[in-house]
C-alpha cells in the first residue's frame, strides 16, 4: 500500500499543536490516495511518550527518533534523518507544517531527495497520481492550484486550515536511528518573548493593532484584550506600526509579514491597506474597530464598530471577562 509521511513537530520535548493538523492533513490525503500514514516524531530522549497522541489522528505507524542532539533545533541532523526515512519508505508524499521548523526543513529535504515542493498548502488532493496543492500566491491575492510532478510530492500545510480530525489508526511505534551527523548550524540560545508563545501566524485568535492605537504606550490595552480572549490568542500589528518601531516585525500581518488564517481576527485601529487585507483574507470571522467609517477594513469585516479604538478596546476586554 502507498504511504504518506507526516513530519510531527516538537519544541522543548512537547508536541506542537500543529502536529495534530499535519497528521490530519496527511490522513485526508491518504484516504484520497488509498494510502496509509506514517508519522516521524523526532526529538530529545523521552519524546516517544508523545506518540500515542498522534495515533488518534490517523497514524498507522509512528517512527520515533530520540536523541539529545535534538534538544535544540538541529536542521542538518533533522533534514538528513527525514531524507533517510523517506528513501527507505518509498513515500508518495511528505507533509510538513508551514512553521519556522517545517519551512526551514522542507526545502532542505526536497533538495536532498530531488523532489518537488509546494509551501503553505490550504488544500490537498491526489489527482491523476500526483499530489496536487492549492496555495495562496501574492500574499493571498490569488490562489494557485499546482501539481507536484515527481515523487515524493513534498508539501507544507498552512496552520489553522486543516482541522484536526480524530480518525484512530494502528499507531504502532517503531524506533529509528538518528543519523550521526554533526549539525553545522548550532543554536546557541533561544530567547522567548514573554507571553508570546503562540505565533501570530499560527494562533486561532489574533488581536492586531494599527496606527489608530495612537502609540506604543497604549498596547497594554491590546495585551489585556488578548489575555481576556485566552491562551489561544496572539498579538499582531499593521505594517505602519512595525515601520514606526512600535512593535516587532515578528508580529506584522500582511504581505511583508505573516499571512494569517485564524478563526477570529480583530483589526483594531487598522484602516486596511491592500497588503494587509490580502494577509488576513483566509480568516473566518473579522472584527474591525476604526474611527473612520470609510476605512477599507470595513469592507472585509464581518462585524464593525466605528469608534476610537482606545475607548472601545477596554470596554471589549471588560465585557469578555464577564463571560
Amino acid at each position, binding site marked *: 500500500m502507498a504511504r504518506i509521511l507526516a513530519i510531527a513537530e516538537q519544541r522543548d520535548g512537547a508536541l506542537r499543536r500543529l502536529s495534530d493538523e499535519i497528521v490530519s492533513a496527511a490522513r485526508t490525503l491518504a484516504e484520497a490516495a488509498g494510502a496509509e500514514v506514517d508519522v516521524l516524531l523526532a526529538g530529545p530522549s523521552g519524546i516517544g511518550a508523545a506518540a500515542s497522541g498522534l495515533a488518534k489522528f490517523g497514524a498507522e505507524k509512528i517512527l520515533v527518533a530520540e536523541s539529545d542532539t535534538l534538544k535544540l533545533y538541529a536542521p542538518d541532523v533533522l533534514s538528513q534523518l527525514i531524507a533517510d526515512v523517506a528513501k527507505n519508505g518509498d513515500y508518495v508524499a511528505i507533509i510538513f507544517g508551514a512553521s519556522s521548523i517545517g519551512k526551514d526543513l522542507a526545502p532542505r529535504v526536497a533538495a536532498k531527495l530531488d*523532489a518537488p515542493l509546494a509551501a503553505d498548502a490550504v488544500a490537498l488532493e491526489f489527482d491523476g497520481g500526483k499530489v496536487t496543492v492549492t496555495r495562496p500566491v*501574492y500574499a493571498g491575492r490569488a490562489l494557485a492550484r499546482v501539481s*507536484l510532478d515527481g515523487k515524493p510530492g513534498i508539501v507544507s500545510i498552512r496552520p489553522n486550515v486543516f482541522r484536526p480530525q480524530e480518525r484512530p489508526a494502528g499507531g504502532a511505534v517503531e524506533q529509528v536511528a538518528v543519523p550521526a551527523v554533526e549539525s553545522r548550524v548550532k543554536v546557541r540560545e533561544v530567547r522567548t518573548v514573554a507571553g508570546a508563545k503562540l505565533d501570530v501566524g499560527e494562533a486561532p485568535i489574533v488581536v492586531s493593532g494599527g496606527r489608530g492605537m495612537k502609540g506604543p504606550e497604549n498596547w497594554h490595552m491590546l495585551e489585556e484584550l488578548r489575555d481576556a480572549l485566552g491562551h489561544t490568542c496572539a498579538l499582531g500589528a499593521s505594517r505602519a506600526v512595525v515601520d514606526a518601531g512600535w512593535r516587532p516585525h515578528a508580529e506584522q500581518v500582511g504581505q511583508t509579514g505573516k499571512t494569517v488564517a485564524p478563526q477570529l481576527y480583530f483589526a483594531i485601529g487598522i484602516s486596511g491597506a491592500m497588503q494587509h487585507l490580502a494577509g488576513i483574507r483566509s480568516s473566518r470571522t*473579522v472584527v474591525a474597530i476604526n474611527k473612520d467609517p470609510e476605512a477599507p477594513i470595513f469592507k472585509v469585516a464581518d462585524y464593525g464598530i466605528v469608534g476610537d479604538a482606545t475607548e472601545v478596546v477596554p470596554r471589549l476586554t471588560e465585557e469578555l471577562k464577564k463571560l
Partner: protein
Amino acid sequence: MNIYVCIKRVPDTEARIKVAGNGTSIDTAGLKYVISPYDEFALEAAIRQKEAAGSGEVTVVTVGESNAAEQLRSALAMGADKAVLLKGQPTLDGLATARALAEEIRGAKPDLVLLGMKAVDDDQQQVGPMLAELLGLPCVTVVAEMEFEDGRVVCHREIEGGVEVVEAPLPAVVTLTKGKYEPRYPSLKGIMAAKKKPLEEKEAKLGEARVTVHSLQPPAEKAAGRIVGQGADAVPELVRLLREEAKVI
C-alpha cells in the same frame, strides 16, 4: 568577503493583482516591479558588511527575463559591484531556480550567500535552503540580524514567539527578514556609477520544472459585513454576535 546576493523581480506589494485570460498567470499590464522587499534586506546586509570590512565584493544574481536587468541595475545603484542575469522563465519550482543559481555561484566559491527569506510573489520560502543543499553549505533562514566572528556568522533567527541565536561556519547561506537591514535609497552618484558596472547575461540552467500551475484564481470575495454600532456602547452587541451568531468565542 566575497558575497553573493540572489534577488527577484516581483510586482510592487501595493499592486492590484488580476488573473490573466489564460487562467494560469497574472495580468502584467501596467504593473510596477520592484526588488522583492526581503531581497533588499539581503542586499543591504551585504553592502554594510563590505563597507564595515573596507574590502570585499558584492555580486547580485537573478533568474528572470530580460526586464529583470532593471532590478539588477537598482541593486548596483545601491552598492553591489557586479550583476549576473540568468535568463529564463521564473518558475514556481524552487528547486529549478536553486539549480540555476547553484550552477552560477558554485565556481565563485563565495564566503557568504544571502537571499531574502522569500519572494513576495510566490511566497514559497524555499530557494535559500535548497541552494545551500546544492552547494553543500550550512544554512540559516529568517534572520533579522547577523554578526561575524572569526570564520562564523551568528544569526538572530525569528521563530514562533521568540528568537533563536544560531551560529554557522562560513561559507554559509543566510536568508533575511525585516530587522536590522532597512535598505538605503540609491544616491544619484550610485545611480550614475551603476550604469558602468558590469552586468553579465547568460542562459539559466533551470533544468526540468516539476511544479505545474494548473489554475490561478482570485480568492472568494467575502460578503461585506455590517457595522454593529458606534463607540464603546456597541460592544455588548458585538460580543453577543460573536457568541451567538459567529460562535467564535
